[in-house]
């Protein structure tokens, strides 16, 4: 088991390495070169030349890369063109917001997705199954940001039930501990803050959860159907085991394997979805940061954020691989 983990970790390193090279190259692909990009509007030929010297852009490309790598590994992504704050600081501040939203969305998707997928498989061919399949097809086709709009429109304008944007009501003076609003309220005893945070969280997390939900339902359903027809389920039945035991230990334990991989992989989509959802709901997390960076062509921020997202994704994949090996003993041999 340990050997497997180490092996996977080592395999992830080249990927991260290539990613860093790609991001490094990306910035240099910009028309006018990175100096122009970094200076933005203030670029003049002299300033560009000066910047080039400062950035060491006249040095051989390999040296530049290692300098870049060195800075990245110490967390130095430069400073935002707009605010002048170090990118790392901005990211650290925005991160908990996105974390909260993503966790909430994933939680919803799994909580409702797995049972629904299971039920669809159980009642295969009947109404529930067909309705489920159609729902998931539509769920994938609906753009996340539109769903966000729709929810926002219906629940905040037509029926003024939920707050339209942001994470907390300004009137509630909430203390910030971890940056995760719901948690902070609990930690400081300000329960009204937690409740308010939850209200704000509902709509965006539903919007964000829609695609992972649809995918989880489909994979669960397909997987359960597959496993139900397997020989070992027949053996379990022939042993006279009770239906709940067969379902739990034989069907589900095998059927949920691919589902757990999916959950991990959905993180990738979740990140993209977060960007869009955060814009609709003015969430103030990494997505908002990214979107602003795009609008303003704030390249240091963009570089940092893209590298961050990609790295997170690679690490999550790694975690998924390892947890898969814990659940399925057959994988460890590879």
């Amino acid at each position, binding site marked *: 088991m340990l050997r497997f983990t180490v092996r996977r970790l080592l395999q992830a390193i080249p990927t991260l390495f290539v990613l860093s090279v790609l991001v490094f190259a990306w910035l240099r692909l910009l028309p006018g070169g990175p100096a122009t990009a970094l200076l933005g509007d203030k670029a003049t030929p002299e300033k560009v030349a000066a910047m080039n010297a400062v950035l060491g852009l006249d040095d051989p490309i390999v040296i530049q890369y290692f300098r870049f790598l060195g800075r990245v590994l110490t967390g130095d992504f430069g400073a935002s063109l707009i605010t002048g704050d170090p990118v790392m600081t901005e990211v650290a501040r925005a991160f908990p917001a996105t974390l909260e939203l993503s966790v909430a969305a994933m939680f919803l998707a799994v909580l409702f997705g797995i049972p629904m997928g299971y039920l669809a498989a159980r009642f295969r061919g009947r109404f529930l199954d067909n309705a489920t399949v159609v729902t998931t097809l539509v769920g994938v*086709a609906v753009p996340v940001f539109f769903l966000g709009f729709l929810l926002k429109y219906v629940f905040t304008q037509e029926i003024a039930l939920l707050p339209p944007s942001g994470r907390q009501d300004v009137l509630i003076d909430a203390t910030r501990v971890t940056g995760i609003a719901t948690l902070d309220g609990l930690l400081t005893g300000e329960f009204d803050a937690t409740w308010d945070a939850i209200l704000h969280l509902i709509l965006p997390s539903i919007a964000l959860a829609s695609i992972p939900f649809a995918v989880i339902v489909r994979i669960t359903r397909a997987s359960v159907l597959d496993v139900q027809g397997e020989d070992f389920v027949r053996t379990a039945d022939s042993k006279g085991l009770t239906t709940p035991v067969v379902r739990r230990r034989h069907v589900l334990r095998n059927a949920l394997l691919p589902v757990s*991989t999916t959950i991990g992989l959905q993180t990738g989509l979740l990140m*993209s979805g977060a960007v869009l959802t955060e*814009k609709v709901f003015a969430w103030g997390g990494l997505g908002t940061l990214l979107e602003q960076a795009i609008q303003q062509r704030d*390249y240091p921020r963009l570089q940092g954020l893209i590298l961050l997202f990609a790295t997170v994704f690679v690490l999550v994949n790694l975690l998924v691989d390892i947890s898969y090996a814990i659940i399925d003993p057959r994988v460890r041999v590879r």
Partner: protein
Amino acid sequence: MSILSTRKADKIDALAEGGTSLAMDALRRTFRNPVAIIGLVIVALFVILAIIAPFIAPKDPYVPYPELQNQLTPSNIPGPMPGFVLGSDQNGYDFFSRLLVGAQQTLFVGVFATLIGVAIGMVIGGLAGAFGGWVDTVLMRLTDIMLSIPSLLLAISIAALLPGSQWTVIIAVAMIGVPVFARLLRGAMMAQRSSDHVLAATALGVKRRTIVFRHMLPNSIGPVIVQATLTLATAIIDAAALSFLGLGDSDWRRAEWGLMLGKAQELLSVKPSLAFYPAIAIIIVALGFTLLGESMRESLDPKNRR
């Protein structure tokens, strides 16, 4: 691998292996499926609309109308009026006509993004599949990494490098498809390589180039068509997302659904239909392509072959 593989790469490989035979037979089987028919109908209607839209639009979609402009205020955009089926958009243009013509632009964006993705992807995948060996390994490692980056982020990275225009969106979205098609074609060709007729041709001394073009490629087309259909759906949605984020064309005169949707989001409280109609149009079209593509893929799946 597990009972059901969920990795993008594995799914693509499965499609590649499944499609290398009897594409015609599969096509016939597809159209017995009611879901496929619905998809096909939607797609057909969309294409027809895209073609005839300029002719059936009641008003000129690229020209503002004073009757509408006069009524524009920051808090009010006129709704349906005589002569203007859906009223005005935020600039005094006829909303309905723009909606109709939008089909054309949207189709354009979707088709081109997909085609470019297919073209580049097929070149990469073809090279990998034809030569094998280290060429294959290197190319596939690269595509794997591209596949592992969330698609929207990939598109954003590329779009951010380029000036804001419609072609930026098209290219960025095309890039999402490149690794998919590369892997797909390579997988199909790999499956073909060990097939009997290729082995026979090689044994007979047929030149490699002929084998690739006359034997391997035609049989690999099936999965490519299926994937292209599915990619069209996501291409339209991804293009809309990019416009929404402000990465695309800033020229609001162009009537393209994604663009219209992006521009309309700030006016949600004033006239929500400006966003709803393009969005629903996108959803229906994406759904149509998805239904069609998914049922085609199911027919090609070897497990379903009877």
